[in-house]
C-alpha cells in the first residue's frame, strides 16, 4: 500500500511517539542492557542456562501462555456478554473487570492463596478431589489469570461495540446462519483485538511477581518463576546477575511479542482490505448456500 498523506499530523504524532518512547522506555532499557553487558555474553548465557533458570523460564512462560489463553477464551465471552446481552447488575460487573489492576498484586496473591488453600472457600471442595491449586504450578496460572484478566476484555469491548449492526443484518437478510455471521464477519473483525489482548496479557504475566510468590510455593525447579530468581539475585546484592536475567527475559518476550504483533497486523490488514459490506455479507451467504 502506498503511503497515504491525506490525513494531517503524521509527522507530529510519530515524532512525539518516538521521542517519548526513547526517553521513557528505550533509554532506561538501553541502560539496563549496557549494564548487563558488563558481564560479558558468555556469562549471561551461563546464568540463563543454569538448571534452575531453565526450569524457571519454562514455568514462567508456560504459565503465562496458559493464563493468556484462559483469558483469551473467557475474555471473549465476557466482553461479548457485557456488550451485547442485557442482564441485571451488568454495570457493576462491567466495573468489576478493572479490579485486578487496582488491587495491589500482593493482596491478590494472599487472597487467592486463602481461597484455594486446603481449608479455603474453594480449596476445601477441590482438594479432596485430588486437585491442588495453591502452592503448585496451577496456582501460578490462577494468579496470572487474575492479574491479566482485564486485558482481553477491555481491548475487545470497544471493538465489539464498534461493529455496526448493519453488517450483521445484511448477512442475515442474505440468509447466513448466526454461526456463519459470527465466524465469517464478526470474528475476523474482532480477531486482531483479541490477539492484542492476548499479547498484552501474556506480556504482563511474564513479568508478574507480587501475586505469584504468595500462591506458587516457590519450590526450586518446580514452582519458581524467573522474577523470583531476579529477586534472589538482588538479595545477594548481585545486581549484575539480576540485570542479566532481566535482559534475557526481555529478549525472549520481545521476540514472542514481535511474532504476535506481526500476526495481529497481518490479520488486521487482511480484514481491513475490507470488501464493501455487501461483498462481505455475500461471502457469508455463499457459505450458507
Amino acid at each position: 500500500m502506498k503511503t497515504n498523506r491525506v490525513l494531517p499530523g503524521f509527522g507530529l504524532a510519530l515524532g512525539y511517539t518516538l521521542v517519548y518512547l526513547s526517553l521513557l522506555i528505550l533509554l532506561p532499557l538501553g541502560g539496563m542492557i549496557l549494564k548487563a553487558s558488563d558481564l560479558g555474553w558468555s556469562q549471561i548465557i551461563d546464568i540463563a542456562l543454569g538448571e534452575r533458570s531453565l526450569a524457571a523460564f519454562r514455568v514462567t512462560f508456560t504459565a503465562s501462555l496458559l493464563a493468556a489463553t484462559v483469558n483469551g477464551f473467557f475474555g471473549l465471552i465476557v466482553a461479548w456478554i457485557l456488550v451485547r446481552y442485557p442482564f441485571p447488575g451488568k454495570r457493576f460487573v462491567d466495573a468489576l473487570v478493572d479490579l485486578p489492576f487496582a488491587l495491589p498484586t500482593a493482596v491478590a496473591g494472599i487472597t487467592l492463596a486463602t481461597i484455594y488453600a486446603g481449608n479455603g472457600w474453594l480449596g476445601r471442595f477441590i482438594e479432596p478431589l485430588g486437585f491442588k491449586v495453591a502452592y503448585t504450578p496451577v496456582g501460578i496460572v490462577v494468579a496470572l489469570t487474575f492479574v491479566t484478566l482485564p486485558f482481553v476484555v477491555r481491548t475487545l469491548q470497544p471493538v465489539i461495540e464498534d461493529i455496526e449492526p448493519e453488517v450483521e443484518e445484511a448477512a442475515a437478510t442474505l440468509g447466513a446462519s448466526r454461526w456463519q455471521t459470527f465466524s465469517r464477519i464478526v470474528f475476523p473483525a474482532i480477531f486482531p483485538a483479541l490477539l492484542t489482548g492476548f499479547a498484552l496479557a501474556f506480556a504482563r504475566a511474564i513479568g508478574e511477581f507480587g501475586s505469584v510468590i504468595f500462591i506458587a510455593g516457590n519450590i526450586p525447579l518446580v514452582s519458581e518463576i524467573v522474577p523470583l530468581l531476579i529477586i534472589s539475585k538482588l538479595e545477594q546484592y548481585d545486581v549484575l546477575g539480576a540485570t542479566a536475567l532481566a535482559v534475557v527475559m526481555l529478549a525472549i518476550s520481545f521476540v514472542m511479542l514481535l511474532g504476535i504483533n506481526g500476526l495481529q497486523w497481518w490479520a488486521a490488514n487482511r480484514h481491513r482490505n475490507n470488501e464493501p459490506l455487501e461483498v462481505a455479507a455475500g461471502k457469508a451467504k455463499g457459505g450458507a448456500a
Partner: protein
Amino acid sequence: MKSNRATQEPGWVRALLLATGLGFLFFFLGLPLVAVFVEALAQGWPAYVEALKDSETRSAIWLTVLIALAVLPFNILFGVAAAWAIAKFDFRGKSLLITLIDLPFAVSPVVAGLIFILLFGAQGYFGPWLAANDVKIIFAVPGMILATLFITFPFIARELIPLMQSQGKDEEEAAVSLGASGWQMFWRVTLPNIKWGLLYGVILANARAMGEFGAVSVVSGHIRGETNTLPLHVEILYNEYNAVGAFAAASILALLALVTLVAKTVVEWRMKKETDMLNTVLAPEKT
C-alpha cells in the same frame, strides 16, 4: 432489536455464554473481592473505619492519587499520538514500534524499578551528577512518578490502536476533504469515535497506576507518611500483623471499581444526549 436468527444467538447459546462468562468472573473476580472485604471487616465496622483514619494511611491515599494524576495526562497524550500514527498511516517498522510499546508490560515491575536505580541511583549512570546538583529523583516522588509512567506506558496506546485500526480512516479523510482543519477533524470526528477506547485506556492506566507495587517499591525508599503509596502501605501493615488495616487499605483500591462505574455512566449519559440531539436534527435525512 428484532429477534432474528442471524443477528442474535439462539436462546440456549445466550444462556450458556452468560453462565460461562459470569461464572468465570464470579470465581476469578467476585470471590477475591469478597475475600478482601471479609478480611477488612473481620473485626467489625468500627475497626475498619479506625484503620482508614490512620494518618499514614491517609497520606498514602493522597500520594497515590497524586501520582496517578501526574501520570495520566502524559499517557493520554502519548496514547492518542501513537495510535494516530500507527493506525492511520502506513510506514515501515510498524510491528516493531508496537512491540516496543508493549515492552514495559513484559518487564517485571521490580526490574522496572531497578532500571531507574541503574540510571539515577547513587551508583547509577547519572547518579553522581544528580548528587552534585542536589537533585533528588529516586527515593522521592519524581522517581515514583517515573516508575509509574513506565509501568502504565502502553495502556492507552494499546487500547486505541486496535480500535482505530478497525475503524479505518474513511471518516477522517472525508472530513479533511470537506475542508476541516486537523484540529477540527480530531475533535469532531476522531475523538467521538474513540471515546470508549480512550475511556477504557484511562481507567485501566489509572487502576494500574494506583495499584502498582513492585516498581514503585524499589524507588520509593518507604519513608512513612512521605513516600509510601497505598499498595506499599498495605504490605507494611500486613507484615506488621495489622491484617484489618492492610485489607481496609486494599479495599479502598478495590473501590476504584466504583469510579469506573461513575465515569462510564457519565459518558454514556452524555453520549445519549448527543445522539438524541443528532437524531432530532438529522431525522429527516435518514431513509
